[in-house]
């Protein structure tokens, strides 16, 4: 019979305290697993989505909010910028590519983004089915959108005003799905893309309705008529995503935007870093909490083994009289510690994955959805830590078992 089986049997003979120790370890590793997976996914999402974007230009306000709304499609936009100024900036020699964004509508919580072919080039989008949007009210939808809302090429849907509410539906203009994108593993999976004109037209009608109402009330027909004359110059965008022509631009361009226009420039890299450092405080606190739990678990395993050693020293002495060497007793006690902590670690890692998957299912935002079905190399370290805690907690009892004077123990009884 191997030492492993003897240790295993010994643990089974006291199931409650073994289970308690395993639970403590599992709880600690579970929290660490969730933190590891979540922070990995968040930073990966942050990186993936802002990969090729050097700068975002939008209305003045919080730069973080601008980044969140224009790159991650999470927060509300800071406001609008005039199309005219945006066009001027796009022509700047510092800019290699400028992608216009017009936000403001959604379909059942999925954001509708008015943009042009630069967006396709920026994210290197590929089609899975159909074609890219071409005419007004044609939409190309992300793989996630197609799956979630069960839309096919040729289907139609109505956009609603706002970024998440479904109350104010634009009934006049249905969108037609012209194509479905390949899954990209970034925000574009959960977006509906169309041309800017569609977003404008949707809102022109909308505003016209309101203005006509207002105009008729005030008897001011002239204003409403003037609206028709105003062309592109009066139009507005939400923001511009900018790729620099050369790295040199970093030094000049953002300052130029911030100082000479009434728009603001925000750097995704900078804002992501500051966002991550905000999250980081919480992550760090939880990490220490988990480490504390692991420490308590280690002490608990130690106390458990140490106490049971007192009861078992006669057993161990008998094993010696049956021919077991000191080394074998050492091994039996150490293996007990390792089985406890390693089993706890396995349970904890599994729990962590389940918990994160569960959390992901209940998350509101599609863009920041976390999943538990992802395995990282770093998880190996959790097992190494489990192993180390097991050895750490069992080493003193094991040395005692090794050094015990069996003649003394046997003659005591």
């Amino acid at each position: 019979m191997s030492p492993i089986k003897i240790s295993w049997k010994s643990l089974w003979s006291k199931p409650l305290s073994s289970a308690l120790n395993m639970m403590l370890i599992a709880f600690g590793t579970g929290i660490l697993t969730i933190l590891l997976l979540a922070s990995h996914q968040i930073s990966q999402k942050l990186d993936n989505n802002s990969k090729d974007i050097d700068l975002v230009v939008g209305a003045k306000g919080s730069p973080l909010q601008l980044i969140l709304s224009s790159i991650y499609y999470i927060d509300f936009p800071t406001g609008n910028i005039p199309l005219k100024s945006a066009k001027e900036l796009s022509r700047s020699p510092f800019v290699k590519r400028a992608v216009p964004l017009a936000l403001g509508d959604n379909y059942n919580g999925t954001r509708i983004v008015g943009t042009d072919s630069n967006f396709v080039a920026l994210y290197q989008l590929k089609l899975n089915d159909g074609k890219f949007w071409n005419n007004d009210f044609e939409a190309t939808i992300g793989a996630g959108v197609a799956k979630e809302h069960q839309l096919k090429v040729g289907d139609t849907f109505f956009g609603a005003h706002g970024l998440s509410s479904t109350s104010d539906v634009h009934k006049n203009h249905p969108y037609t799905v012209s194509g479905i994108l390949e899954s990209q593993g970034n925000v574009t999976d959960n977006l509906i893309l169309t041309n800017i004109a569609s977003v404008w037209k949707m809102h022109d009608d909308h505003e016209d309705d309101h203005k006509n109402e207002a105009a008729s009330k005030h008897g001011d027909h002239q204003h409403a008529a003037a609206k028709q004359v105003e062309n592109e110059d009066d139009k507005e965008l939400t923001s511009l995503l900018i790729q620099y022509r050369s790295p040199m631009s970093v030094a000049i361009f953002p300052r130029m935007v911030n100082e000479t226009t009434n728009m603001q420039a925000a750097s995704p890299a900078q804002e992501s870093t500051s966002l991550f450092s905000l999250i980081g405080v919480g992550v760090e606190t939880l990490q220490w909490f988990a480490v504390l739990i692991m420490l308590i678990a280690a002490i608990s395993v130690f106390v458990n083994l140490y106490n049971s050693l007192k009861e078992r020293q006669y057993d161990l002495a008998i094993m010696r009289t049956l021919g077991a060497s000191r080394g074998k007793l050492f091994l039996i006690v150490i293996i007990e510690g390792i089985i406890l902590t390693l089993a706890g670690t396995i349970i904890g890692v599994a729990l962590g994955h389940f918990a994160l998957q569960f959390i992901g299912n209940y998350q509101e935002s599609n863009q920041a959805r976390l999943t538990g079905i992802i395995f990282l190399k770093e998880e190996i370290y959790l097992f190494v830590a489990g192993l180390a805690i097991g050895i750490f907690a069992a080493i003193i009892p094991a040395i005692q078992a090794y050094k015990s004077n069996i003649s003394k123990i046997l003659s005591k009884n």
Partner: protein
Amino acid sequence: MISLKSVTHRYHPQQDIRFEDWQIDAGSQWLLLGASGSGKSTLLHILTGILKPEQGHVTIKGTSIYDLSAKALDQFRGRNIGIIFQRPHLIKSLSISENLVIAQSFANLPTDLKRVDEVLGALGIADKKNAYPDQLSQGQLQRVSIARAVINKPALLIADEPTSSLDDNNARIVLELLMQQSGANQATLVVATHDKRVKDAFKHTYELS
């Protein structure tokens, strides 16, 4: 053949105890007598390689056991010496048959379940094979500890007060089984006791003063 030669044990720096030389022929059955505190357990521990004496040699089957390395001595003990204690200490987390199997594996012998059945059968407890120690009576447990002691067919079978915690009937049965098992396994038997019920059964006696 087992011999004890000029063995001295030191309890405290000033208090040595010297044991008379002892020759035990293979297959003979001995009684080790002595009042409690006379060094009975000490002598048994020295004889079984558990306690290294201050001086002297213990030779079993031609091997001077205290010249072996610690690990080799443990294995030698597992293979050649069976020990029965006053109280039948079995490993509580293991079943009866597993308690016998670990005696085989600790001695580095292959697991032999046939031998386990054979020994348990000979001691009349074959039906308790899968039970756990806390389900058995004292008398049954003592039989299991005899089974464990003889499982590897040892050359030397040593019993330390095997009957003192048993009633007359069980004491008689255990003694009979001990003598019968040592005969069946061709083992030399040494029984240490101060139990008067046991004395008459033995021809040879080694007395401690």
